[in-house]
């Protein structure tokens, strides 16, 4: 079942000449994980905002085409209707924190409080989200006492707790240590196995290649590619697209070692193709 349908999406910010999104089309199946990559200012964050309805409802401007999320056409839905279907984690966790809550626990419960759930249901969902993002030990701390990385995980937990059918994450691991990054991606893996559809903007290509089913490459507001990680990273025009392949792929490319028609994109794939030394 198609959970996200984007059709000829065009968008221009007020007072700007250039389109921020230029004829973008793609479809995402239920439970798929899509990585969105590309240079800064290529339209990745704007696309995230369009998927959840912040564009065109909050950011005005010129809008064309359609975004349908879990059967709901975003242009005709209110932001609160859309919020029940699709959640967004912003690039900067400071943007996400309400500032109105005194503990991490309450902060993570904030979205749920606005959904009219029973107390028992809320506790179960908040606990699960806190454990999934490994911030349960900090649940009684003030949100602003957290380190950058902990705050980023709290922001993700707040959205996960609401159990949207689609989650959009804009560079959710930018401030995380390697273990925290791995935890976020494996949490997304677990949620997608349960049917949640994941769209994730990310600069860490090794993780995108390992975890995502497909990759959308954005360039100057346009869709430059939409395909499996192996196909995308095997292209020889990546530098023109402003992206870089995973370290593993670069090494295999330099040595001319393919696995079938494409270069490996993961550690295991590269080790297989290059062969063990002993």
């Amino acid at each position: 079942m198609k959970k996200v349908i984007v059709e000829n999406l065009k968008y221009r910010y007020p007072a700007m000449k250039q389109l921020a999104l230029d004829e973008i089309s793609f479809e995402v199946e239920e439970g798929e994980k899509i990585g969105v990559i590309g240079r800064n200012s290529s339209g990745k964050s704007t696309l995230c905002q369009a998927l959840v309805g912040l564009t065109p409802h909050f950011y005005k401007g010129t809008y064309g085409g359609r975004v349908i999320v879990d059967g709901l056409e975003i242009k005709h839905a209110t932001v609160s209707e859309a919020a029940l279907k699709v959640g967004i984690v912003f690039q900067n966790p400071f943007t996400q924190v309400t500032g109105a809550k005194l503990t991490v626990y309450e902060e993570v419960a904030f979205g749920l409080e606005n959904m009219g759930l029973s107390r028992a249901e809320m506790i179960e969902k908040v606990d699960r989200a806190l454990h999934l993002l490994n911030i349960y030990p900090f649940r009684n701390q003030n949100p602003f006492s957290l380190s950058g990385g902990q705050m980023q995980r709290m922001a993700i937990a707040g959205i996960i707790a609401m159990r949207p059918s689609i989650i959009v994450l804009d560079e959710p691991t930018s401030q995380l240590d390697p273990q925290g990054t791995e935890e976020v991606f494996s949490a997304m893996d677990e949620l997608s196995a349960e049917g949640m559809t994941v769209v994730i903007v990310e600069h860490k290509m090794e993780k995108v290649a390992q975890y995502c089913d497909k990759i959308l490459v954005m360039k100057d507001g346009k869709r430059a590619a939409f395909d499996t990680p192996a196909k995308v990273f095997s292209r020889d025009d990546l530098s023109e697209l402003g992206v870089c392949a995973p370290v593993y792929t670069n090494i295999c490319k330099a040595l001319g070692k393919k696995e079938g028609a494409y270069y490996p994109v993961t550690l295991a794939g590269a080790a297989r193709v290059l062969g063990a030394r002993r």
Partner: protein
Amino acid sequence: MISVQNLWFSYEPDDRKRPNPDKKYALRDISLEIDKRPTAIIGQNGAGKTTFVRILKGLLTANRGAVTVMGEDVSRTTAARLARNIGLVFQNPNDQLFKKTVMDEAMFGPLNIGMGEGAARKSVMRALDIMELSDKLDTNPHDLALSDKKLLCIASVMAMDTDIIILDEPTISQDYVGREKVKRVIRLLRDEGKSVMTIIHDMDFVAECFERIIVFNEGEKLLDGGAKEVFSDAEMLKKAHLEPPYALQLAISMGLGEVCLTEADVIRCMMEA
């Protein structure tokens, strides 16, 4: 250039003579010397890395222990005086930016430490050129993308021409091109004889740019050594919840005998074999 002896720090008030075993310390008994080698401080979120550099910069005061920067005891000086010797690029650019234009923002630091107007302007223009921001002089810093805000913060600190420059997570939200820009700047500063320190989670970036690595874990210094030495200590890295660079992970899983830290190392090693 920096000397740290038995440094303890807690965010809770602490007026006892000895460390209190019941108290939560963000930093516990840290001793180290910083020299001219480009140095990366790595460790988990919450390990005390940012706290540590804030103390060096005089923004936080240690509970006990001695810190000297270019021979000056930080407890006996002011953050304003320290600013002439040590520049810090904050983790979150929104904490650092406050002027109305890119130019004013970059000029603030140099003027504030007493650089003359002409010299400041020259230094600022050079830094903004390197960061490819010189076409945005009149832009409001808050209208820049997060990645450009970070580059502006780096340029502003570079322009102050301090002997020590500390970058707190310089590659945050940088794309491939931005990451290469940061890499170039770090090498440039090193070649100019500056002491560059960074806090960073990108291990492949560390392997490519930094000679010395200090590992923090739960407020303690766990390891301190050359990049090869630190990244080959699998047991300690695991203890600090860190992993080796991707290139080295591949080299290890292929059983390459050599410690290959970067893509280029692995490729060379494979070609020679």
